[in-house]
């Protein structure tokens, strides 16, 4: 018993007690979807298809992990699609110059998007612009930067090492999946093992009490938006690598899937309550259902309706769980 408790604490020092049932409820929904799809489709439960699902969710997964941090502070970031494009075109131009290595492309692209994320954070924390508005502004600014930088034309990439990021495999496992797993693990450590992570929850739960407790609330917020920017940049580069070009119009609408995954995962839009595990399950639920509907040849119009119903359903369940 004692060992078991210690083990649980090791798993999630951030507090497994809260909404445990709800988390398991989500996992049950995921399992249910998997079981149903395995029965109705022959191809669903094959190794190739499952890897396919994971590869498809990894970009949204990275975005949703970053978005979780932002939403936990009580904020929101609408600009991530544009930040993806900024990072993608900068990275693509760096490798196609042939002077730069892939690593340099990654670093430059992510620094640019991380910086823009930090600017959104500063607007919201220091200048008291509501996050919705600050990042809405950044959404158009970022898109403009990407278009300006490329003159509106895609930058084609030939570099094999750059393409490897989005298209390569390590053994049977796609590289983006590995990157997603590493990012999720790093952010889990950040969120549950560091003071910074603890302050994210505190700031989202009660900003005033956090400030009175000696937390530099502004720095936490700016940091969170900057990290979210970095991760958006990484996701943008993976996307560019997948399609072998940096497109100034890439990433449009990606913020919606990321926010949807976080919300399905049970993180409160008011901040302070939620979990990374919930978000990851949310990402998988969206991915599995998308994949399943594709396999079943459901029209993409219907897919959108079904996804919307699932998001609304998840939030309704969340409300009911809170009421009791």
């Amino acid at each position: 018993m004692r060992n078991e408790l210690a083990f649980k604490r090791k798993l999630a020092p951030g507090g497994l007690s809260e909404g445990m049932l709800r988390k398991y409820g989500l996992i049950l929904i995921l399992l249910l979807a998997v079981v149903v799809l395995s029965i109705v489709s022959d191809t669903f439960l094959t190794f190739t298809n499952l890897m396919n699902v994971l590869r498809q969710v990894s970009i949204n997964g990275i975005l949703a992990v970053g978005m979780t941090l932002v939403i936990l502070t009580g904020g929101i970031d609408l600009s991530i699609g544009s930040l993806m494009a900024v990072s993608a075109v900068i990275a693509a131009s760096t490798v196609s110059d042939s002077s730069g290595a892939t690593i340099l492309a990654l670093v430059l692209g992510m620094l640019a998007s991380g910086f823009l994320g930090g600017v959104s954070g500063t607007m919201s924390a220091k200048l008291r612009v509501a996050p919705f508005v600050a990042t809405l502004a950044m959404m158009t600014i970022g898109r403009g930067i990407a278009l300006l930088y490329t003159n509106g034309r895609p930058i084609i990439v030939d570099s094999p090492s750059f393409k490897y990021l989005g298209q390569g495999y390590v053994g049977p496992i796609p590289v983006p999946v590995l990157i997603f797993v590493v990012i999720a693990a790093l952010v889990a450590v950040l969120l549950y093992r560091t003071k910074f992570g603890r302050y994210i929850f505190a700031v989202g739960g009660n900003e005033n009490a956090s400030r009175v407790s000696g937390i530099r609330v502004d720095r936490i917020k700016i940091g969170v938006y900057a990290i979210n920017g970095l991760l958006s940049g990484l996701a943008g580069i993976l996307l560019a690598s997948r399609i072998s070009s940096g497109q100034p119009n890439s990433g449009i609408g990606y913020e919606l899937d990321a926010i949807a995954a976080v919300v399905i995962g049970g993180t409160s839009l008011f901040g302070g309550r939620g979990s990374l595990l919930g978000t990851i399950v949310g990402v998988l639920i969206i991915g599995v259902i998308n994949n399943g509907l594709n396999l079943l040849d459901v029209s993409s119009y219907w897919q959108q309706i079904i996804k919307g119903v699932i998001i609304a359903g998840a939030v309704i369940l969340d409300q009911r769980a809170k009421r009791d």
Partner: protein
Amino acid sequence: METVLAMNGITKSFFGVKALDGASLEVRRGEVHALMGENGAGKSTLMKILTGLVTPDEGSIELFGERVSIATPQDALRLGIAMIHQELNPIPDMTVAENIYLGREPTRGPFLNRKQLHRQTRELLERFDFHAAPETRVGSLSVAQKQMLEIIKAVSAEARLIIMDEPTSALSDGEVKTLFQTIRALKGQGVPIIYISHRMEEIFSMTDRATVLRDGQYIGTADIAALDADRLIAMMVGRPLEAIYPKERIEPGEVVFEANGLSRKTVFDDITFRVRKGEILGIAGLMGAGRSEVARAIFGIDRLSGGEIRIDGRPVAVRHPADAIRHGIALVTEDRKEMGLVLCRPIRENMTLASLPIDAKGAFVSGRSEAGTVRGLTDKIRIKMRDVNQPVQSLSGGNQQKVVLAKWLLTKPKVLILDEPTRGIDVGAKAEIYRLMSELAKEGLAIIMISSELPEILGMSDRVLVMAHGRIQGEFEGAHLTQEQILACAIGGSHSA
């Protein structure tokens, strides 16, 4: 006399903690029945069950001899159970008549029948001796009148049982008299009332019988005539309360904290005082005297526009609470929920929140050492909880306040500023906070206590400052200090020494 309501064996748990454990309540026709207990005793949960806001885990409710189930507030209304809340919520831009008949307006065909609405309202108002026209806008009424309106509304909706939760808390003395007249009128009409109040004199003058709950359990029901205040308190607290202020006189040590000529434009000016090791300095004054504002500025929440703070004789610059904490200042704010706690987070995280930024363990949080720290302190402070991972919002007010105190003690402060440390918490928890203050002072902490409760100021302070209009108006010391002296200084601003 006929039993109107019988609640039996009511049990309800939240987050694994039993808020009610086999509680009972029996109310008879035409009586005013006091429901007594400390905060967290389960009074409000029992009333929430009666009004359909919470469903019980176990137990039965009988109304007029019939077993009923109350699953929603609509059920409660249908059964004729009405609650007059502490916070009233009439719609200010509608008239008295419209508010009373909201949702059940008299109609003629599909249209409102204004004439009938006003006639019915006028009759009703006359019955209760309520001097206002049916057309009066509710927003222009006084708090007491709004409360009367709620009661009249309940009666007009054929309430068969009325619950009043701290009905006099926002009323002036004159208004209280009016309320009591209304209650007597209701009583005369046979409507039973469940009356919740912490004010003893009201309990003894207005109620017929009292039921006491403690820790969610039924302690007893008695005729008020057979009780006195001491017996009633003993029932509520579970022990006699002879030593509520366990203040020990100790010889104060050297000066730890100095405020020299602190000012903040238009808020306070020329605030100068010193606090010694082991000393409790009380700061008294009326609301709006600028006491909390001084505390906020010392702590770096607001900016000072002039003056100097010294700790251990050295001047320190405080621009953010983080600076204050680093220099050994702690502040228990007056508003626990807004400024003190992150309500949705666990007790454990709240307790370590303020000490994390200053501990020397780098960027990481060690779960194991944190658990040890927290456990060591919860024993000393006696927080009533299931475990340290439950959210703070599941605790009662007194226990929440203890979590705030624990948080600040973990920063190992030299100076502890307490702003209204016992506001809104019950007698038992108050006594424990006083005991803790006394122990901390004995251990050498310098304590500044801002309080609007004069008995507390007199009972706990070694020395008392009185503030009015943003200035220190007087300083008092000694055992023969009286409430009248302090009050006179707080109101008149006389410069006595």
